[in-house]
């Protein structure tokens, strides 16, 4: 972690503020029965921006992430992607999801398919890409995340870190406009966390728009343009990473940071 921590200033230049934001959530409300999990959420993410979402367990971070590709439908408010409101269930929604890459905490690689097939499947089935082309693309991506030599194995034969990198390659294969990461490293053994964070940092440097739920402060400092702190279903505080970690404004953020720092 030391290599990461000394990079105190965000190394990626903040995205230019020109043009429409890519992802916009306005007045989003979401309930699970009685529980108000997302309350008055307003958030917009610019093209090329990297937003880290942080907050205590149960604060609604995953739900926020999942709402952006409508894995979780919202009760009111509007979410737009590139100016288009999210469609309801159906073909249009499937097309939209192809533009939003998602990486899960539990990897969720297709257990009955090889690593290579995992990466090729989306382009072939959702975008009608030719097999040869999909395969070449998939191999390039696997190369890029450093697991090309595992292409013919089943996911269960890979380490957690390798599986998560395959999951990133699978999402990238769809050439998404934005990538969502829901605690991508929290199911990993400590020695595997960095190999995944490195891939994500490279992605951020290349200008990918990213929403990342993570407690990895090193990553936030190094790659994020903005930190969004959530508590009890609300966005409590937003700031540049350095500002947020060294001078949190709200008491809840201070309290939360003191807890994760002592760990």
């Amino acid at each position, binding site marked *: 972690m030391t290599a990461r921590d000394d990079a105190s200033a965000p190394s990626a230049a903040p995205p230019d503020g020109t043009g429409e934001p890519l992802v916009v959530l306005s007045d989003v409300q979401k309930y699970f029965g009685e529980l108000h999990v997302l309350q008055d959420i307003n958030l917009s993410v610019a093209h090329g921006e990297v937003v880290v979402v942080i907050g205590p367990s149960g604060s609604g971070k995953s739900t926020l992430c999942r709402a952006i590709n409508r894995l979780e439908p919202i009760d009111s408010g509007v979410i737009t992607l590139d100016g288009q409101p999210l469609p309801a269930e159906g073909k249009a929604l499937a097309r939209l999801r192809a533009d939003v*890459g998602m990486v899960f905490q539990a990897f*969720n690689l297709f257990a009955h398919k090889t690593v290579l097939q995992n990466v090729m499947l*989306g382009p072939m*089935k959702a975008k009608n890409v030719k097999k040869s082309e999909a395969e070449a693309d998939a191999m390039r991506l696997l190369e890029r995340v450093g697991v090309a030599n595992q292409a013919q194995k089943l996911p*269960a034969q890979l380490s957690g870190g390798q599986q998560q990198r395959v999951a990133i390659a699978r999402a990238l294969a769809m050439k998404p406009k934005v990538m969502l990461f829901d605690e991508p490293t929290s199911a990993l053994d400590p020695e595997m966390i960095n190999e995944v964070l490195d891939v994500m940092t490279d992605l951020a440097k290349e200008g990918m728009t990213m929403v990342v739920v993570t407690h990895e402060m090193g990553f936030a400092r190094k790659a994020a343009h903005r930190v969004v702190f959530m508590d009890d279903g609300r966005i409590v505080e937003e700031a540049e990473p350095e500002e947020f970690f060294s001078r949190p404004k709200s008491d809840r953020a201070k309290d939360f940071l003191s807890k994760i720092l002592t760990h």
Partner: protein
Amino acid sequence: MDAVVSNFDLYWQGFRMTLVLTLISAVAALVLGTLLAACRVSPVVSLRWFGATYVELVRNVPLTILFFFFIFVAPQIGIRTPSFFVSACVALSVYTAAFVCEAVRSGINSVGVGQAEAARSIGLTFTQTLQLIVLPQAFRTVVPPLINIFIALTKNTSVAGGFAVTELFAIGRRLANANPADVIPVLVGIGVCYLILTIPSGILANWVERKVAFAR
């Protein structure tokens, strides 16, 4: 014993009919049952309702009643089939499909929700998600219960014997009536014929179960 040996051709005829009834109904029930299971996990409420109602209705009615319906009642309301044989296949398929549906549905539920979420999040439609990701994994856990369902189906074909389809059971009854002195060997012969069909299925089920266990 003579009654068995001298009527070997009748046994053979009944055996083939039972086999054909079983195979046709098994394939039809597999297709129909899988579609019903897809209804039961579909995001569309009316489809879920349809699937659940079908299963509850069909599963809880005696098979004989279904035969009675398809052979005597259905023609009166305009649903005609070319023969009793076809009606028997329909009744057996409709009945067995309800059980197949429940087995496939529990198989679908055994596949983690993460698999379907990952599939949807790379832009696959509901149908593609089911067809490419969930069902292939579900079928591994579903094969053993499915084979049990098909063993029950093999035995259930005997109901067709009561509705003028000349399968094993009908042959057995005819031979038993014609040879009162040989009832025991006649019926043992019929039983053996069923065992010839069901025991290999059971062995197949065990083999598949072991095979699947290794593949994990």
